[in-house]
């Protein structure tokens, strides 16, 4: 009888002391609030064309899988013009890679269609890694970044990691 009563009393008295934990929380939370970043800034590497003293290498007998093609994407107000250039391909082969994609809404460029064309070029010439982006003066910076995103990777596969930004020459 006395044993059971003692046990009951002990059960009632067990109580966790939360005060030290609360103190720790009160120290940790302001510290974490100060060092928290609620938006993450990332970066996209790019470059502008510069004069180069090195000459492009010529390899007329190289295999298709080793041929490198430089893709040029012109973002115009009402169309996206895709062309390609390479020292290793004939004019006829390069002409097959060209495309004109109409833009119905200047605020929303058809990125999916552009990605499909770029994917075709990448699959045809997998060694290609450079894309020159030539936007029209009125194209907004947000659209340029969107196009760069699409050019670098589509459907989680790498396409053209070297994106060069250039103004229209001439």
């Amino acid at each position, binding site marked *: 009888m006395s044993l059971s009563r003692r046990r009951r009393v002990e059960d009632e008295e067990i109580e966790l002391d939360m005060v030290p934990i609360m103190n720790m*929380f009160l120290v940790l939370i302001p510290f974490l609030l100060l060092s928290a970043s609620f938006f993450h800034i*990332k*970066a996209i590497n790019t470059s502008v064309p*510069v004069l180069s003293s090195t000459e492009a290498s010529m390899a007329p007998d190289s295999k298709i899988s080793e041929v490198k093609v430089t893709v040029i994407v012109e973002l115009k107000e009402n169309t996206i013009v895709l062309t390609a250039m390479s020292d290793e391909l004939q004019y006829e082969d390069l002409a097959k890679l060209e495309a004109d994609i109409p833009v119905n809404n200047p605020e929303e460029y058809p990125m999916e269609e552009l990605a499909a064309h770029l994917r075709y070029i990448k699959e045809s010439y997998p060694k290609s890694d450079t894309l020159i982006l030539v936007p029209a003066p*009125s194209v907004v910076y947000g659209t340029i*970044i969107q196009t760069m*995103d699409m050019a670098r990777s589509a459907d989680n596969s790498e396409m053209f990691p070297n994106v060069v930004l250039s103004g229209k020459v001439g």
Partner: protein
Amino acid sequence: MALGKRRKAAKPFIPPKLQITSMMDMFTIILIFLLFSFSNNPEQMDLDSEMSLPQSTSKLDYKDSIRLVLSKNELKLDGNVVATLENDSIVGLETLYDELKKYRDIADELKKNENEEDRKEHILFLCDKEHSFKVVNAIVKTAGRAGYPNFQFAVVEKD
């Protein structure tokens, strides 16, 4: 007498127990959330409140470099205003060129002394997403002429 009796009958004061379980729950949730958003490199950027960076899927972290910020109406180089924006064109690009040329000369001097870590070889460009390419092109071309053809375009990570 009656008063004394009443006093004797009064129960002893028991300090009220603070019910902190719900507060603990709340603190635990806040702590977990903050631990997930913890950054050992919080962005120390002086950004205009009206400025909105474009979103991107890029996962690349930016490197410490020369910061060029184009907000709605001014261009800042490492926190100092070097040019202004008037009617969709930049006024004062010569100042930007001169300042970047100074940076270039310092970088070249460091290159000679082989202080590789101190050299800043590219520009971190922060630009409002609504600016036209005409404005952006004028700036990147000026930077390219001054010896900085490589850029990192700052973007906000897409969720």
